[in-house]
């Protein structure tokens, strides 16, 4: 940066500072302030939540001509920041973990539908998957269900208390329906990161792991004699979600191939005639007292951004499925979604 431009930026900064003094006195006309911080429920700046949030925040910032910045502060801090700021300076983006954590009774998670305003959904990460070693005797998920039903113990490595556990819970629920009393043979191995879960499989401490298409696809293409080779058994995403993925799929696994692993090809019954599915959806959360006008403003802006169609391309390049629903629709939709999972979790307790 050249010297004059530094002076110029400094000058504008001082002016902005002056204006901030002035404008804080005037009652805000209920729109997003000039400086907005988007806090997310993850502490990783390399993860899907961060990536997705930056795509959306960048789009919004450009569209509304304001400053927006994504900060990976983690769930408990993010909720706390949101609690304290009804002005609209702090927004949050998170995914289904926000209510699943509450359903699983994890400390630090409250009922988001009661405590916050639900904002629009923006995208889906369709990658949630369950994998087995390539030389595993289980060819399909049904084999697993049958084996557990016959009294065989199957150990599944998951991260407890949320997105990683929900598929496991659904599987357990399905077993309790088809083979009552046998569900305890499906054992959770509680571990942490994806690295830990993979490690459990390599060390033969688990028979199946929770993973993602993005992180595990290359492992599924290793030769069978490689200790690290894996095989997809199940993707929890809805068929309709995967159908929207780019035709080439991910890596060298095409959309066609991915579709083999979703319902109805892989069936995990919920007992009501439907198959269990789970899409990891990203959505906004707002402070309950934030002005409705700001909620509307963001809905409006996102509607326009999604109408332009560019953001969808960006999301798809990063293997996200665009899924914009304005806040009212999103709140209703997510609440229904939660009640389904609540039933499953109470069933198996």
């Amino acid at each position, binding site marked *: *940066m050249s010297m004059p431009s*530094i002076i110029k*930026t*400094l000058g504008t*900064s001082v002016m*902005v*500072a002056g204006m*901030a003094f002035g404008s*804080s006195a005037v009652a805000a006309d209920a729109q997003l*302030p000039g*400086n*907005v*911080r988007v806090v997310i429920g993850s502490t990783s700046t390399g993860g899907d939540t961060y990536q997705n949030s930056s795509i959306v925040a960048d789009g919004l910032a450009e569209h509304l001509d304001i*400053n927006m*910045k994504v*900060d990976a502060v983690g769930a408990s801090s993010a909720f706390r920041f949101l609690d304290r*700021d009804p*002005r609209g*300076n*702090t927004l949050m983006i998170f995914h289904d973990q926000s209510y699943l954590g509450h359903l699983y009774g994890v400390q630090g998670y409250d009922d988001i539908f009661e405590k916050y305003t639900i904002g629009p959904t923006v995208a889906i990460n369709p990658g949630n998957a369950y994998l087995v070693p390539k030389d595993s005797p289980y060819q399909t998920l049904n084999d697993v269900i049958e084996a557990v039903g016959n009294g065989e113990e199957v150990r599944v490595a998951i991260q*407890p208390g949320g997105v990683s556990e929900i598929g496991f819970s659904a599987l357990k629920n399905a077993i309790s329906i088809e083979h009552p009393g046998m569900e305890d043979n499906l054992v959770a191995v*509680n571990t942490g990161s994806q690295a830990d879960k993979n490690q459990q499989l390599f060390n033969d401490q688990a028979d199946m792991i929770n993973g993602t298409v993005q992180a595990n696809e290359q492992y599924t293409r290793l030769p069978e004699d490689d200790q690290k080779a894996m095989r997809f058994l199940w993707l929890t995403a809805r068929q309709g979600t995967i159908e929207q993925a780019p035709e080439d799929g991910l890596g060298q696994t095409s959309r066609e191939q991915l579709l083999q692993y979703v319902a109805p090809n892989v069936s995990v019954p919920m007992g009501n005639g439907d198959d269990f599915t789970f899409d990891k959806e990203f959505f906004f959360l707002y402070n309950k007292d934030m002005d409705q006008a700001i909620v509307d403003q963001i809905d409006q802006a996102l509607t326009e951004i999604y109408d332009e169609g560019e953001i969808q391309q960006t999301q798809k390049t990063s293997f996200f499925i665009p899924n914009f629903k304005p806040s009212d629709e999103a709140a209703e939709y997510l609440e229904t979604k939660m009640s389904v999972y609540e039933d499953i979790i109470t069933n198996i307790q």
Partner: protein
Amino acid sequence: MESGLSSLLSVSIDFETSHLFFPHIIHWVLGVLFALVLVFNVVPFLAAVRRGERSLPILGESMDKFRFFGTLVLIVAYFQTMSMVGNFFPYTGYGFLFVSMVFLFLMSLMYMHTRTRRKVLTAAINALVAPTLAWFILARLFQITLP
């Protein structure tokens, strides 16, 4: 014999309370070590204090009370006002920028033994330039969130 050993070593951890398992062990280790330190270090030390050979830490030492407590008070005030001012101008870093200027100047003044005009002027310039530079580079160029 074999089974006796393995049952001695066997342990079962309940996931629901597993957060207390390791802290529990550490508490025991800490307790035992504390007792040892008490016997071998603290008691002989106190005996030496009584005989007047050693003096108690902190209480029995001379200190520059003004600069020591002044530092503590300034730092507390600095942190507190920074977040308060920052809250007026959310996510601009102004809280950090303006409060740091005041803090730097006051702390410099406090640490000076002789306050010559030249020294005070240096401190003032430093108090203006250093926070501005830090704020400009970090908050503006690199978009790091500051209070």
